[in-house]
């Protein structure tokens, strides 16, 4: 256990010190990839908060898009700082989450059917963004209005290191939330609900309340991730921030890494982003679609042969020995 702690400390120190390591011409690119990994890991972790309990959402793009577009539109049209815009976005996302979760819970829409409902919600948000093109720029997307100079109010910085540290903090925050949920009695309640709603209700668990709570938490964190991504890229687009494509990418990354383990979403996200980058560099613009094909094939292979994910499987293998101790959640 203490060896694990040392490992975590070393890893964190390395991540904090990374910006001071000379990287030559690769600097901007490496930061760009790392920031993406942190932000999408955070989003994947938010998704896994629900996914691990059998609430497999195939429409988290809805929350991502709602968050990103709300802050961007409020800034572009009303000059409202993204800090306050994010608050508005969080409230709206929470409301959308309740609108999705409440009827699903009341009418026992679970499993595949829940997936299909969320899939539709994700598409509805994407189509709304495209339809409201006077505001949102439609499928062409929308550039975040430049503030001119580095500005904390506008959350715009020329130096990638600012975003790097912000993304690192965000990622750590996501892990902390995941850990807190994992350690709480609420996790037991959610596991119980995920397995058998009738039995869970019979021991006094308020099924609807728990489902709404975990959906709102997951959706709000996802929206925050979307806002962070939009502020960093300074451009929002309905296809990268809403709809089926991005929703499934989140799911695939988490399933690949392992949705039941703290670092599963991070490992999965890092691997998929790295893989996508490698394939992009190798194939470039020759053989259009080849990168996606290989990406898809690898995912299928992983999902079939490592159902609890790469990280989850490795961890389970390492953990096989000690069984007398109470199954305390491993501190990474």
């Amino acid at each position: 256990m203490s060896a694990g702690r040392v490992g975590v400390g070393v890893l964190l120190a390395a991540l904090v010190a990374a910006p001071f390591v000379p990287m030559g011409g690769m600097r901007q690119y490496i930061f760009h990839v790392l920031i993406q990994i942190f932000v999408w890991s955070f989003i994947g972790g938010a998704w896994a908060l629900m996914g691990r309990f059998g609430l497999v959402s195939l429409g988290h793009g809805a929350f991502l898009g709602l968050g990103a577009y709300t802050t961007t539109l409020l800034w572009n049209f009303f000059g409202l700082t993204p800090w306050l815009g994010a608050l508005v976005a969080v409230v709206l996302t929470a409301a959308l989450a309740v609108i999705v979760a409440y009827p699903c819970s009341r009418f026992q829409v679970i499993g595949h059917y829940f997936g299909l409902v969320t899939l539709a919600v994700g598409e509805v948000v994407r189509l709304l963004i495209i339809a409201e093109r006077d505001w949102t720029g439609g499928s062409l997307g929308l550039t975040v209005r430049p503030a001119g100079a580095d500005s904390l109010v506008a959350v715009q910085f020329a130096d990638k290191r600012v975003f790097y540290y912000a993304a690192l903090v965000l990622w750590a925050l996501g892990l902390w939330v995941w850990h807190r949920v994992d350690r709480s009695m609420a996790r037991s309640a959610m596991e119980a609900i995920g397995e058998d709603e009738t039995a869970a209700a019979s021991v006094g668990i308020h099924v609807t309340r728990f489902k709404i709570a975990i959906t709102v938490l997951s959706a709000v964190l996802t929206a925050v991730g979307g806002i962070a991504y939009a502020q960093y890229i300074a451009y929002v687009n309905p296809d990268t921030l809403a709809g089926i494509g991005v929703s499934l990418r989140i799911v695939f990354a988490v399933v690949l890494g392992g949705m039941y383990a703290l670092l599963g979403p991070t490992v999965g996200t890092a691997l998929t982003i790295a893989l996508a980058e490698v394939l992009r560099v190798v194939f470039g613009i020759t053989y259009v679609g080849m990168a996606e094909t290989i990406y898809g094939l690898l995912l299928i292979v992983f999902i079939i042969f490592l159902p609890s994910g790469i990280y989850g499987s490795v961890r389970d293998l390492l953990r096989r020995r000690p069984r007398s101790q109470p199954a305390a959640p491993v501190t990474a």
Partner: protein
Amino acid sequence: MGGHLGAPHFQMLTVTGLTKRFGGFTALNAVSFEVKEGEILGLIGPNGSGKTTLFNCVSGALTPSSGSIRFGAQELAGLTPDRICHLGIARTFQIPRPFRKLTILENVAVAAHFGAAQRSSEAEARRRALEILGLVGLATTPHAPTTLLGAGGLKKLELARALATGPRLLLADESLGGLDSSEMAGAADLLRRIRGELHITIVWVEHIMATLMRVVDRVVVLDHGEKIAEGKPREVAEDPKVVEAYLGEKVVLA
């Protein structure tokens, strides 16, 4: 078929004219009976006679088509299962439904934490869960997964989980079929201890009559969704209607 009057106990549960229809099928037809505080009431009947449906209605898993279920002064019909649990009614399931992703202790602790009328701390819930595991005889491997338990162990876990919610009335859908005779005797003994030590009133469902008859104070017999007999075990066992319902199987009392 009542006829007899017990001691003037407080009436804990009063079921009046309870009817449950599934489409055109009437699973329960105007069933009325009451449960007195401190007794063990046996609820028997052949397979498909409506015993489990009755439990589902009382515990809130199903909404009655008509009729009333009163717990003390509180009407239960239409309340949600978690609300009914908080009022002090716990139930077990005929086929054990453990939470497989939780350990044995977690299964019981989650019930102790969320099932109690007043929410206690998580540590307190775990402590209570251990205590109850001790009572039912499962305290040896609290951190093991539930897959370690056999049929008898799962029944005990089912019971422990229900007891952890701190009920005043326990609906035990026991159905001991599948257990050997010593396990059956143990289960019967356990129910007696639950009444004696925890002062919990019990409604016990079973379709193997012999074991049940030795333990319960009174019996209610259901057949095709209707109450056909009610009374002391010995009287009920002699009742021709009951004998007929069980296809002539005569119950031998010890």
